[in-house]
């Protein structure tokens, strides 16, 4: 195969060609009725307007990020503690398992109206929704990780007369790290869904509010700006956790099944 032919068939070239064709087609057909799908140059103009001229993008995103980070941190700490507790202590497992499974299976948005009654529609609501969205996948994956620690590793630890806490810190936690990272990655994705759900349905603030507001006024070009930013942010979030995972657990084979 010649060099040119190889370039044309390379992943990068195919992806780039695909994106160029789609953007060009969107630009042409989007102009027919801008309300329906707008078009890329209008969206770019809207991005400049919102981001720099009117300066609404950054404050909205900062609001979203604040709720997201606080909620996710709480969910991660609580979720990992509960997950390990359930994985290592039989009684905790038996007591909590039915409720964790039931709440894990419930779409969290169904709880939003109830949460509004309990915590209002402010920062507390956003954080609560984020925590409830992220904590159950974190608990369940941590639990599976704690449960799946190789018996032989544990026996080796015991043979060296490790006590409970030594066993936990030197065997159980490192052995379940790959599961912990899976837990955090799924948790982060869910946390993002949670904050947007809260912001679009009840709290009406941050990035979610922009989406609602531009949708309501049929400003499709502006509507695409927060939507695209959100999608890209979600991809970056997952990549950051993959990166950390490769750094912290280089021995584990990470199947990239996004």
């Amino acid at each position: 195969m010649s060099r040119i032919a190889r370039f044309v068939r390379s992943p990068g070239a195919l992806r780039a060609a695909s994106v160029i064709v789609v953007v060009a087609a969107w630009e042409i057909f989007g102009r027919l009725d801008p309300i329906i799908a707008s078009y890329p140059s209008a969206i770019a103009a809207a991005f400049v307007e919102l981001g720099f001229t009117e300066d609404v993008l950054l404050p909205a995103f900062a609001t979203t990020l604040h709720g997201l980070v606080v909620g996710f941190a709480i969910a991660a700490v609580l979720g990992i503690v509960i997950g390990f507790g359930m994985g290592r202590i039989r009684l905790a497992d038996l007591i909590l398992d039915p409720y964790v499974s039931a709440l894990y299976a419930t779409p969290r948005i169904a709880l939003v109206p109830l949460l509004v009654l309990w915590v209002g529609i402010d920062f507390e609501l956003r954080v609560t929704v984020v925590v409830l969205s992220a904590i159950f996948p974190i608990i369940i994956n941590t639990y599976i990780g704690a449960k799946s620690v190789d018996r032989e590793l544990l026996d080796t630890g015991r043979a060296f007369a490790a006590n409970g806490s030594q066993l936990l810190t030197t065997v159980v936690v490192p052995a379940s790290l790959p599961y912990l990272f899976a837990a955090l990655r799924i948790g982060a994705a869910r946390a993002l869904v949670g904050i947007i759900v809260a912001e679009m349905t009840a709290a009406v603030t941050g990035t979610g509010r922009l989406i609602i507001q531009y949708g309501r006024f049929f400003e499709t070009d502006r509507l695409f700006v927060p939507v695209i930013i959100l999608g890209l942010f979600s991809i970056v979030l997952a990549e950051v956790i993959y990166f950390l995972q490769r750094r912290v657990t280089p021995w584990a084979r990470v199947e990239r099944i996004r």
Partner: protein
Amino acid sequence: MTTAPAALHHPHHRARRGFLYTRTGVWTVRIVTFVVLIAAWELYASGVSRALFAPPSAIVESIVELAIVDRSLWGALAISIGALFVGFGLAVVVGVAIGLIMGRFRAVEYVLDPYVSFLYALPSIALIPLLVIWFGIDTELRLALVFLAGVFPVIINTMAGVKNVDSELIDVGRVACASERQMVITVVLPAALPFIFAGVRVALSQALVGVIVAEMTAIITGLGGMIIRFANFFQTANLFVPILAIMVVSITLTTLIRRLERRLMPWDHRHTDEEAA
């Protein structure tokens, strides 16, 4: 299914014997916990306003009222489940087809994966305003949202499964002179089945979220609509009924899929306890 799964249970290793490992022990703990929880809830709720929190006894009354007396629960349930099945069914069929093609043909994968990755990562609720512009506030909106919520996990997991098929199996198929069609049906799809099911399970939960989100935010109908109506009137005891119904639907469907999974591939236990997305 992000990591090489280890065996989860070692029944052949020394079984730790103890009360908590017996059937009686398990159920004793579960029942005691449940009774204590309900009693504490009842006690606590009797002290706060009925608009904020409903005691279990009031929730039971509401269940009787909505399920047996005026039967409005069943209509709402039928509406939600109908939309769920149609949208989810479409998502599975289309998702498996696209995932299969992307997994078999590199060129198609590279052409489509920028969009698939982006839409998979995007919380589907963010698409609602756009879908309202396209479909209006009608049934199609709900189907579109359910479909979009479910299709990407299926595509991505199917593709991963197809690419992950043991190359020796493929070689055996080639040696037997299998056509592309035979290869897909007899080798690739069965081998990719565990991944496809992982995708289907994620898709189911996302699709259910899609139905409820659409019903709560855009078209006020079904179980989601019930939640909104009761919440607006502070009928908290009633509010718990659709929430519990959604829980039951979700747990039932997940259990059914796991059963089907075990039936269809008794040889595989790798992906039964993990989640793909």
